[in-house]
């Protein structure tokens, strides 16, 4: 449709307004909440200074939803929560109702439709993730399929509240790690330098941009068959894939050599310890669709050891800080190796600059 035919003049409105999306009891008690309880897994009760209470029922979703699925969630909201619903940053759906009698029927209906009720308190939460093969232009794997496989394997832990503290999961389809820092993260790790498509490179890439993108200055201009192209110093290359985003002819993705790594101990909250970044604890796991069994097995080992050994309120990283990395590897059965010693910027901040030793 050309501009001349357009009747509508764009309103640059920014975010959708929120007031009409708030339940009337929320609107009435906005900013005047007193405390909350978790009466059972998947249910929150918030009490306001006015004495009003609102109940939240939380359920997992696939995140990759459809209009049909969302209409179904709207039906539930119309039936049980006066036509209001919201989503959490970990892709759960929430229904808020002032009527406690709606809670149990709503749980039954959500469960019967396949939406697991849970995701509250000391549980394994749903996975923060991005797009993968479904939609991304640089992925080495799929996101939603890995997530589905992971959540199938921790389904009970999502619905229970039996962990020492909450466990945040994430997954990412390249080393940019869009899924973010998490207690356990599953992230693609390339193991070979990019293959260079010299035929296409000068046609589709801005050479200086690709050179500038490399964090270790491993990319240099060259001429191949009379055409301007790039070359990679493979000894220097750290297989990060940053060049691929700038230049799709730097082919980093590989069906065999793009592997998975598992990271633990990321934490965003300020509660107790300061926010922390993750450490790598397994790598070279195969990218094995459609169910990625090696990945879910490793996650299972980590979760099992944490559930057994963690004290109340200890997040994954805090538990490891107490027991030490040596015992972490012993108790999870994962194997520490030399590639897990940091060799990048700020590496010395991860060295043990003390005589503190664990045996």
């Amino acid at each position, binding site marked *: 449709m050309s501009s001349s035919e357009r009747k509508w003049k764009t309103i640059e*409105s920014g*975010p959708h307004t929120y007031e009409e999306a708030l339940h009337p009891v929320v609107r009435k008690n906005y900013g005047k909440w007193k405390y909350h309880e978790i009466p059972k897994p998947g249910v929150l009760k918030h009490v306001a200074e006015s004495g009003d209470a609102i109940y939240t029922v939380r359920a997992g979703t696939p995140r990759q939803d459809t209009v049909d699925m969302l209409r179904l969630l*709207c039906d539930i909201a119309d039936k049980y929560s006066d036509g209001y619903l919201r989503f959490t940053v970990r892709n759960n759906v929430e229904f808020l109702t002032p009527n406690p009698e709606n809670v149990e029927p709503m749980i039954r209906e959500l469960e019967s439709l396949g939406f697991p009720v849970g995701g509250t308190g000391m549980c394994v939460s749903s996975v923060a993730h991005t797009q993968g*093969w*479904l939609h991304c232009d640089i992925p080495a794997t799929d996101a939603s399929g890995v997530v589905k496989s992971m959540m199938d394997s921790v389904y009970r832990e999502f619905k229970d509240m039996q962990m020492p503290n909450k466990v945040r999961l994430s997954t990412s389809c390249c080393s940019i790690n869009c899924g973010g820092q998490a207690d356990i993260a599953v992230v693609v790790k390339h193991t070979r330098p990019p293959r260079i498509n010299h035929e296409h490179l000068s046609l589709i890439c801005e050479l200086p941009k690709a050179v500038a993108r490399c964090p270790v200055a491993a990319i240099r201009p060259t001429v191949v068959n009379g055409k301007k192209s790039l070359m990679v110093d493979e000894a220097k290359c750290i297989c*990060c894939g940053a060049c691929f985003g700038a230049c799709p002819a730097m082919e980093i993705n590989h069906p065999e050599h793009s592997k998975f790594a598992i990271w633990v101990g990321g934490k965003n909250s*300020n509660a*107790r310890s300061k926010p922390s970044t993750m450490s790598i604890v397994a790598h070279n796991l195969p990218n094995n669709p459609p169910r990625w069994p090696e990945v879910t097995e490793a996650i299972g080992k980590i979760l099992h050891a944490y559930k057994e050994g963690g004290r109340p309120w200890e997040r994954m990283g805090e538990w490891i800080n107490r027991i030490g990395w040596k015992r972490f590897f012993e108790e999870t059965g994962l194997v520490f190796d030399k590639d897990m010693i940091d060799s990048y910027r700020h590496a010395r901040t991860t060295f043990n600059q003390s005589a503190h030793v664990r045996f």
Partner: protein
Amino acid sequence: MEGANGAASQGAQPGKESGKETNGTFLNPTPMLDELENGPWPSFVSGFKRLAERTKKPMLRGVLDQLEYSYKTRMGYWKGGLVTVDGYGAGIITRYSMIKDKFPEAAEFHTMRIQPAPGLHYSTAMLRELCDIWEKHGSGIIALHGQTGDIMLQGIEQDKVQECFDELNQAGWDLGGAGAGMRTGVSCIGPGRCENACYDNLKLHLKALQYYVGALHRPEWNYKLKFKFSGCPNDCTNSIMRSDLAVIGTWKDSIQVDRDEVRAWVEERGLDALVNQVINLCPTRAISLRNGEMEIENRDCVRCMHCLNAMPKALSPGKERGIAFLMGGKNTLKVGVNMGSLIVPFMKMETDEDIEAFLELIDEIIDWWDDNGLDHERIGETIERVGLKQFIEGIGLEADINMVSRPRDNPYFKAEY
């Protein structure tokens, strides 16, 4: 697989036992994807297949075919491009199939990023209208939500984008950010339900993103810039790590204590729990047991939230509330992960004037970044490269000991003389 035949494997549509059964009419076989219909967690594959069988949209069939092919070959097949709406330079994520000869129905599969309401609140009227417009013009696939906070309407062809946008825009929706500009923001539920919300993050989110709406639609900075707004230091939006501009609620005075509720908590859980789960876990040892009662030395408190989380009925944030402002969070690409660091320890955030003062500060910051940043450099990287000292001088802030974990451990600087 555990629970494969359990209730949850039915997926999200009543009266259908499995999406697999819908196969065989409109869709082509997708044996690998079908494996993802097993197991108790709701299956996106079942959802896509049901949608495809109902709507008979060729794009859905093509995308499932291409995804199956990705699963078989372990490679991705989308490439970017440039699609936009009138007057905007961002907001549509363009995807063309690299193998459209093989899967012509998947030739185009563009995404429209849409900014949701702060706090991700919806009325069913809003959401149903969004679904109706999207089904009319696009594939009907929606991701709630993208990691930057957008509603992701996935799967539309270029020639339908403008008309779809116009209808969405009339219904109160606007595109989200992309590229080197302001990005869509994220807020936690804030004062909408949480007793720990220390400021109205939904309001600040709305005002800030409205203020920067031009920079969001027409990106022209060094790189992306993301806001996240968390009501308290629990930071449920993960703002410290996930955003360049992290706005986190906090308080200045003492934690509010309801002594009767503290006693009730101890009565229910025992003194051991008070010692092991509250007192011993305080990161600055600000809590002690005195004559059998819990005492908080507020001068030692760093407002981490742990004791409030453990005793939500007994303890609340203080009364003098506002925000702490951190900057520079980003993930791994190039220099490695960077956690945001503290720039402003406390600002009031109650009145419209407070919001204006905050936005003036952000304007100063963006101006400084425009002058000092390099192409494809996040602002946290610029601050580290140029210097935090130079940065605060540049934007007119005084040095504050809260900006660092400790003073420097080397003498390599030149003071003014």
